[in-house]
């Protein structure tokens, strides 16, 4: 190898590349069978509609729709039966960026669990104001997901369907109102930027803590106890 070749080889490890985008989720979404995906959203909407109709049409009928919780942009519905969702649903978290880039792209101040530097940071332009997700662990083996987005008390940004066996418990996160959702996996839906209903993965949705502070909704998903989730949530600042 001559000098020039050696010098070129030396360059190889020194190029400043932009952060690699999250291709796996985007590719998985594009190669997924379309019909099933669409069908799912329609089914979810239909289910919500049926539940609502039942509750509204029959006075006092609360068999299916047990209780509504509103918290920031997240609406949680408890229904009798949880729909079965494919486990291979991709994590739709947006573009992978650095923490500093994420801070520049959203209109609210990001808060990170203290002592827990996020391993992967994603930013999405929806809902308005942006949404940031901190993924801990790898995409293949995620351990915790913390999501932050701006939401007002009246807009319904997301809907959760919680099985009757699951529990939804009001909690306080250092004085901020929150909900602890535990139990079997629950579906998580959100409205995408084109106004369509989209589903988010169930992989991390085993235990969820949602809370709101200063107009920002925080969601923490991890397979942890309530106390542990609250401890982590209190450290988010």
């Amino acid at each position: 190898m001559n000098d020039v070749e050696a010098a070129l080889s030396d360059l190889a490890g020194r190029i400043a590349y932009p952060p690699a985008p999250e291709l796996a989720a985007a590719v998985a979404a594009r190669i997924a069978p379309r019909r099933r995906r669409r069908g799912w959203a329609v089914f979810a909407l239909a289910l919500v509609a049926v539940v609502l109709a039942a509750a509204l049409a029959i006075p006092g009928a609360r068999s299916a729709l047990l209780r509504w919780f509103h918290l920031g942009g997240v609406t949680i519905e408890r229904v009798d039966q949880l729909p079965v969702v494919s486990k291979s649903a991709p994590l739709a978290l947006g573009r992978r960026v650095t923490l500093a880039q994420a801070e520049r792209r959203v209109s609210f101040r990001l808060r990170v669990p203290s002592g827990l530097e996020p391993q992967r940071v994603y930013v999405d332009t929806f809902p308005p104001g942006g949404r940031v997700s901190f993924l801990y662990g790898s995409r293949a083996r995620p351990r915790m997901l913390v999501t932050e987005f701006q939401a007002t008390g009246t807009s319904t940004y997301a809907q959760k369907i919680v099985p009757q066996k699951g529990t939804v418990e009001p909690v306080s996160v250092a004085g901020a109102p929150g909900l602890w959702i535990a139990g079997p996996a629950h579906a998580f839906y959100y409205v995408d930027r084109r106004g369509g209903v989209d589903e988010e993965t169930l992989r991390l949705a085993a235990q969820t803590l949602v809370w709101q502070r200063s107009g920002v909704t925080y969601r923490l998903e991890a397979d942890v106890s309530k106390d542990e989730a609250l401890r982590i949530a209190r450290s988010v600042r």
Partner: protein
Amino acid sequence: MEGRPLAERQLVERARRGDRAAYEELVLAYGTVAFRTAYLLTGRAEDAEEAAQDGFVKAWRSLARFRLDEPFRPWLLRIVANEAKNRRRSAARRTRLALEQAMEFSGDAAPSPEDLTVATERRERLLAAVEQLPEAQRDVVVCRYLLELSERETAAVLEMPEGTVKSRLSRALEQLETVLEGV
């Protein structure tokens, strides 16, 4: 050369049979090199992301035509490189390649700050010279040295005979040598 040839082969076989999870593993394994290949060819992160993503989707649809006795990486990168070349913009719109911040050294063996500056300047000049090569030579140099592909892989990715890779490399190296000598 391929890191985990056995695992890769099994994943490709499973993906060919329609196993999306296996294909997602391949995307995870080769996502970074695919994105970097596209970035070096297009010079823009947005174009590179699109090219890499479209490349993976096209590769999935073309898996039936992939021969299992071939290595997967150059086959995939050829598809990504074609997507990238289709998205090339004018030279003015390219982001100039930059070097990572130099690592800090410590201890007795640490080079002096002056030596570090000289080395950094030399690298920057070489990188700028690579970017100014005619496109045909630049592509070959980028694949062979910056992506560290073999000559055979470079030929496969850029869809040209190995002889063409060799001749373009030798012309490019002569050109770059004059830049380095002109210190």
